C-alpha cells in the first residue's frame, strides 16, 4: 500500500497526486510511468511521472478525471492508500544535447512533459516550451515549466491569450517565424501528439511522443498496449512509451484507445450510482442505464 501525501485539483478536471513511494522516487527518471490501481476492485492504469522528491520519497503524477479510475482517484485525499502504485516503468526518455528542443504538452501532459523539459535544459539544450490548453483557466505548472524553459508559449482557443490556435497551428507559426528546432517532444492526449507530429513532419524535425495505449500489467506480460511503429508491433510498456511520432500508426492507436468506450461509460454510471446509495451496489438502485452518468455525477 502506498500512502497519498497530497491530492489537489490543479485546474478543472485535472488533479495532481503526490504519493509516498520511496523506491519509485529513488529510481525514476524522465519519461517513466507508474501503474496505479485506486482500490481492490479497480482497474490498473498507467500514469506518467510528473515530478519526484527523492529525499521525501514522494512521486507526483497528474491525471485528468475521465473514467471510473481517474474519478475514484480524484475523490481520494491525503492519508488514503493506493493498493497499487508500481514503477518506475517504461524506458527512460532519450536525453541528450540536441541543440534546440521544442517541448509540447497538453492536459495531463503538461505535468508529464515537465521532467523531460528539465532534463533537456540540464543537458544544455535550448528548451522551447509550448503548452496547449483549451482556455486560460486550464493552464497549470506555468511557473515550474518557465523555470526550465528558454522560451514559453501557449496555444489556446481563448481570446485571453489572443490566440485561437491548436498546437499544430502554433508550431507552424513558430517554425515559420524562424524557430530552428533540432528535436521535438510532445506529450498529451493522442490527438495532441498526433497534431504535433503532423506539424513537425514537413520540417523533418524528429519528434518523440509518449504513447498512451490501454495497459493492464504494464510490464510486457499482456500485450494490450501494442502499437504499430514503423510497420512493426511494439509494446508501449516495455519498448516505449517513447516512440518516433512520425512512424506511429495513429489510426490504429486512436481505435485501440477507444476499445472499451461503451464499457467505460457503463462503469462510470455504475460507480456514480454506488456513490448515490452508499453500501448498495449500483445495480440495485432503480435507475435505468440510459439516463446516462452526467446528471448523476456528484457535485464537486
Amino acid at each position, binding site marked *: 500500500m502506498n500512502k497519498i501525501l497530497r491530492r489537489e485539483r490543479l485546474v478543472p478536471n485535472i488533479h495532481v497526486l503526490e504519493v509516498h513511494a520511496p*523506491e*519509485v522516487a529513488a*529510481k525514476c527518471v524522465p519519461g517513466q510511468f507508474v501503474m496505479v*490501481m485506486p482500490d481492490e*476492485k*479497480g*482497474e*490498473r492504469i498507467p500514469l506518467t511521472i510528473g515530478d519526484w522528491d527523492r529525499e521525501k520519497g514522494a512521486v507526483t503524477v497528474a491525471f485528468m478525471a475521465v473514467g*471510473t*479510475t481517474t474519478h475514484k482517484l480524484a475523490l481520494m485525499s491525503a492519508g488514503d492508500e493506493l*493498493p*497499487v*502504485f*508500481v*514503477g*518506475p*516503468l517504461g524506458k527512460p526518455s532519450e536525453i541528450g544535447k540536441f541543440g534546440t528542443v521544442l517541448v509540447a504538452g497538453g492536459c495531463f501532459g503538461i505535468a508529464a512533459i515537465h521532467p523531460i523539459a528539465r532534463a533537456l535544459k540540464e543537458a544544455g539544450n535550448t528548451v522551447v516550451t509550448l503548452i496547449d490548453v483549451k482556455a486560460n483557466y486550464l493552464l497549470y505548472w506555468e511557473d515550474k515549466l518557465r523555470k526550465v524553459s528558454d522560451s514559453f508559449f501557449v496555444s489556446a482557443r481563448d481570446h485571453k491569450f489572443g490566440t485561437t490556435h491548436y498546437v499544430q497551428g502554433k508550431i507552424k507559426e513558430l517554425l515559420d517565424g524562424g524557430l530552428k528546432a533540432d528535436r521535438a517532444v510532445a506529450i498529451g492526449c493522442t490527438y495532441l501528439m498526433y497534431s504535433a507530429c503532423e506539424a513537425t513532419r514537413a520540417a523533418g524535425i524528429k519528434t518523440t511522443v509518449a504513447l498512451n495505449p490501454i495497459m*493492464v*500489467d504494464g*510490464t*510486457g*506480460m*499482456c*500485450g*494490450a498496449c*501494442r*502499437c*504499430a511503429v514503423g510497420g512493426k*508491433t511494439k*509494446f508501449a510498456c*516495455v519498448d516505449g512509451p517513447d516512440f518516433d511520432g512520425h512512424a506511429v500508426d495513429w*489510426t*490504429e492507436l*486512436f*481505435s*485501440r484507445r*477507444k*476499445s*472499451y468506450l461503451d*464499457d*467505460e461509460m*457503463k*462503469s462510470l454510471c*455504475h*460507480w456514480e450510482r454506488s456513490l448515490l446509495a452508499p453500501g448498495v*451496489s*449500483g*445495480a440495485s438502485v432503480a435507475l435505468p442505464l440510459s439516463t446516462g452518468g452526467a446528471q448523476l455525477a456528484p457535485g464537486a
Partner: protein
Amino acid sequence: MADEKKELPPDDKARLKAEFDLDWRKDLRKSMPAKDRVKIERQKMPARPASVRNADFFEVNSGLSAEAALQEARRCLDCPNSPCVLGCPVAIDIPSFIKLIEKGDYDAAARKLKETNSLPAICGRVCPQESQCEAVCTMKKASGASVAIGNLERFAADYEREKGKVLIPRIPPSTGKRVAVFGAGPAGLTVAGDLAKAGHQVTVFEALHTAGGVLVYGIPEFRLPKKILEAEVDYLRKLGVELRMNYVVGRTATLEDLKAQGFSAFFIGTGAGLPNFMKIPGENLVGVYSANEYLTRVNLMKAYDFPNYDTPMTIGKKVAVIGGGNVAMDSVRNAKRLGADWAAIIYRRSSEEMPARLEEIHHAEEEGIEFHYLQAPTKFIGDEHGRVKAMECLKMELGEPDSSGRRRPVPIKGSEYVKEVDLVVMSIGQSPNPLIGQTTPGLKMGKWGNVDVDWKTMATNIPGVWAGGDIIRGGATVILAMGDARTAAAEMDKYLANLGKTPPQA
C-alpha cells in the same frame, strides 16, 4: 533443453528405498495380490455437468471421495523400480504417498507430498500427469489405465487443507542469509518454500498485486480456485517467507541494488511474460487479444464481474482461439462461460499433435467447444471502427516432421475461407519477459531471449544467481518450473552454506 532423466540421483534413490523397505509397506503390499489390484478399475474424477459448469466459474472437478481414493490407491502395485518418480520433475515419492492413502493416513500422505513439492493441491490439478508420472506407470502397462496419481495428489492435499490444520514443518534456526526471489509464480514460490525450510530469510518480489504468477493471472478459477492458491501462499508466509507485491525487479530495484541491500543469493523466476503474435494483418484490431491479456482481465482483474469490478473486456459471441495448448483451452472455455454462442479452437496441426492436457480437451469438448484442426488464420478483417469482424483461414495438411518431432503443417493452396468472429484470442505461446535481461548487465541470455543456465544446477553465468521456469524455457508447464526451482534451491542452499566459510576474496 535439459536432458531426459535416465536415473534418479543417489540421494533420492536411497530415500525411496528406505521407505519401500518399511514394514508397513511390506505388509500393505502383501495384503492384496497384484492380480487383484489390476482388476480394480481406474476411479473416475467426478465433474460437475458440462451444461451447468459452462455457464459459471466454479471448479469443474469435485475431487475423489475417500472411498474412491482408497480404491485408486489400491491400484498402485508399489513396484520396486517406481518409474513414476522418474517421470515426475520434482521426484515426489509417489508410491509412498499413495500407500499412505491406502493405509488411511491422509495427513502423512500430504506431508510426504510436501517433502518435495510445496504446492501439491495445485500440481494435483494442473500437472500434465498423463505425459509424466502416469505415462510410465506400471499399472498402465498391466491394465491399460495408469494409477490416477494426480487425482490422488489432489485428494491428499485437499484433505489436509480442508481440515484446516496444515502442519508447519520445524524450521531450523535462521542462517541469517538473505535470499531474493524474483517472481511469485510456481518457480519462485517453490524456491522460496525450499529455502525458507532450510532456515534462510527469503523475500519474494512480485510485479503484480497478487502472488501466484501464471497461477493467478493465467489459470482460471474453474480449473484452480484462487482460495487454493491463497492457502498455498499463506503456507509460505507461515514458513517465514516475505512477499513484496508491486515490485518490478529491474525497474523498482535492480539485482545490483538488492545485492547492496544485503541479499546474497538470487533466483530469477520472472516467467514467460511476453505473448507471441503471428505477425499477420489485422492482429492489432480491437477484439484481438493475446491469451495473456484475455486471461489476465478475467482472472486477475475479475472482468467477468464487470461492472462490479472496473476492468472491462470484450464479450464475444463468436470466439476463435488460435492455438492448441492448455492456455488455449483455458481461453476458449472462459469465452464459453462468458456467453459465447460459438467458441472454437483453431489449431494448425491435427488433434494428435495438440499439446493440451487430455483432461482439458475432454472437458472443453463436453462444454460445447468446437475444434477446428489443420487450419490457421492468415488475416483478420476489421469493421469501420477498427474492430475485428471476421478472419480469413487457410487449411493445412501434415507434411514431414519438424524440429519438434511433430508433423509440420503445410498450407493447402486456394483453401482460404472467411469466418465471422467478434473476438479472437491468440494463444500461440509466450516468450521470456525481456525486462530482467534488459536491466541486469552481464546476465547471459540465450537466443530466444531466455536467461541462459547450466541445466544441471540452474545457475546463470553470474555467481550467486540462479534461474528457472519459463524465463529459461519460454512457455512450459507449472511442474517443470517447479522442478527447475527445486534443483536451483538445493544448489542455492549449498552455496549459502559455503558462503560464510570461505573468506571473501578481495
